[in-house]
């Protein structure tokens, strides 16, 4: 009985699958695999689409936290490029021989934002003065141990001499995405989030924000690196070169990042 079904399926589906394979063969058998820190994923999707248009190569984006992606790469995950949210992990991969020498560069600079989801929150005062006066219940930041934006948030609060004073009112998201959720859901009135989370093409976020001056923290540099198995892969090199180009830079800016 079941073998009859299998035969039937084979007969019916085999021609269809041949057609499908003809379709995919044209795009190149092996797409480029790019591991991307979650915060940059929307921008990376857009850049991958542009790259596909110009070079015809298919790109597969794999999102994850930089730490998790690092661990996967060390364990032999089949990625060609790594777009990290920090500099530390690409540096370490380079140091440990998992990345190609001299391929590492900062593809984006993060912008920290003090954000309140509620546009009516303390409307008479600037957000900066609200932060300094401490007239709020909770301030959400990303975990400084894990997220570059969290580290920048800690440095900002230290520069403003607030870090010690706010210890019991700082709540932490494990990454910048979760930090955003803490503020967006109204659980924290204020949060230090990323500009890229609020400024994305085709998306309008509500509330008020204050762009934290770059002088208050060390720059949030995000490094890209070519991974070992792709050192001699022309498509991978081309993608990295494409990432350096001004038109890719304009896209990256449109997603709320700066360029070095």
């Amino acid at each position: 009985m079941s073998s009859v079904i299998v035969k039937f399926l084979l007969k019916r589906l085999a021609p269809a699958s041949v057609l499908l394979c003809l379709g995919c063969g044209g795009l190149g058998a092996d797409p480029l695999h790019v591991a991307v820190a979650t915060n940059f994923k929307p921008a990376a999707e857009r850049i991958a689409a542009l790259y596909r248009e110009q070079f015809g190569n298919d790109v597969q984006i794999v999102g994850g936290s930089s730490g998790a992606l690092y661990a996967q790469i060390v364990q032999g995950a089949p990625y060609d490029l790594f777009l990290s949210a920090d500099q530390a992990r690409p540096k370490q991969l380079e140091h440990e021989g998992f990345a190609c020498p001299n391929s590492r560069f900062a593809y984006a600079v993060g912008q920290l934002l003090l954000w309140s989801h509620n546009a009516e929150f303390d409307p008479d005062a600037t957000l900066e003065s609200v932060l300094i006066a401490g007239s709020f219940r909770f301030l959400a930041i990303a975990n400084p141990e894990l997220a570059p934006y969290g580290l920048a948030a800690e440095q900002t609060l230290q520069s403003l001499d607030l870090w010690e004073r706010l210890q019991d009112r700082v709540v932490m998201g494990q990454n910048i995405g979760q930090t955003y959720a803490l503020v967006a859901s109204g659980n924290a009135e204020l949060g230090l989030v990323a500009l890229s989370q609020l400024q994305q093409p085709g998306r309008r976020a509500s509330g008020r924000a204050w762009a934290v001056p770059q002088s208050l923290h060390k720059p949030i540099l995000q490094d890209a690196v070519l991974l070992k198995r792709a050192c001699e892969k022309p498509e991978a090199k081309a993608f990295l070169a494409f990432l350096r180009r001004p038109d890719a830079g304009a896209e990256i800016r449109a997603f709320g990042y700066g360029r070095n």
Partner: protein
Amino acid sequence: MPDLGPLWVSLQLAFVTTLVLLLLGTPLAWWLACTRSRVKPLVEAVTALPLVLPPTVMGFYLLVFMAPNSWLGGLWIEVTGDTLTFSFTGLVVASLFYSLPFMVQPLQSAFESLGRAPLEAAASLRAGPFDAFWTVAVPQSIRGYLTASVLTFAHTIGEFGVVLMVGGNIPGKTRVIAIDIYEQVETLNYGKAHLLSAGLLLFSFAVLVFVYMVNRRAGFRTG
């Protein structure tokens, strides 16, 4: 030596959660075991939801429903002056949902396996329903209580996704052991991560061996 603060928070959380769930789970499990109501499957399904839902889904909804601008979170602030999220109490509330099936299901099956006969006998000896429950049903279900409590405790110790969402990771208050492990892995402190993970693994294994040993002894006695 890793910082033991998160372990301490986890132990406190598991202890309080187990205690409160013993109080809340007992009447619920008893009702489920006895009722012939048509809504029983609905209540059973709601009770079992935390088993199948990804913890992030629960965490996300709890974050929304416990927010200061929500009904529950707002009421909580009015009554206690404190927020529900980012507090130990909030973690307990979240854990009550998260661990509910681990308390209710073993209790329910313990009550069901009692059958009606012992309680009817007690009633014929003029014991009131509460008296009969307390002096007949509970002592006879002691193994069910043991299993339920141990599983609830262990499951709460391992809690991660929900706490991650509603806790805010405040050291000494809402940073639990599973989040600490996650953080050690993410910061590439694999040595500490191994130590903590192995500890949690051994603990969970010991708990399960204990539960199965209790159940096996039960099998010999009745079988």
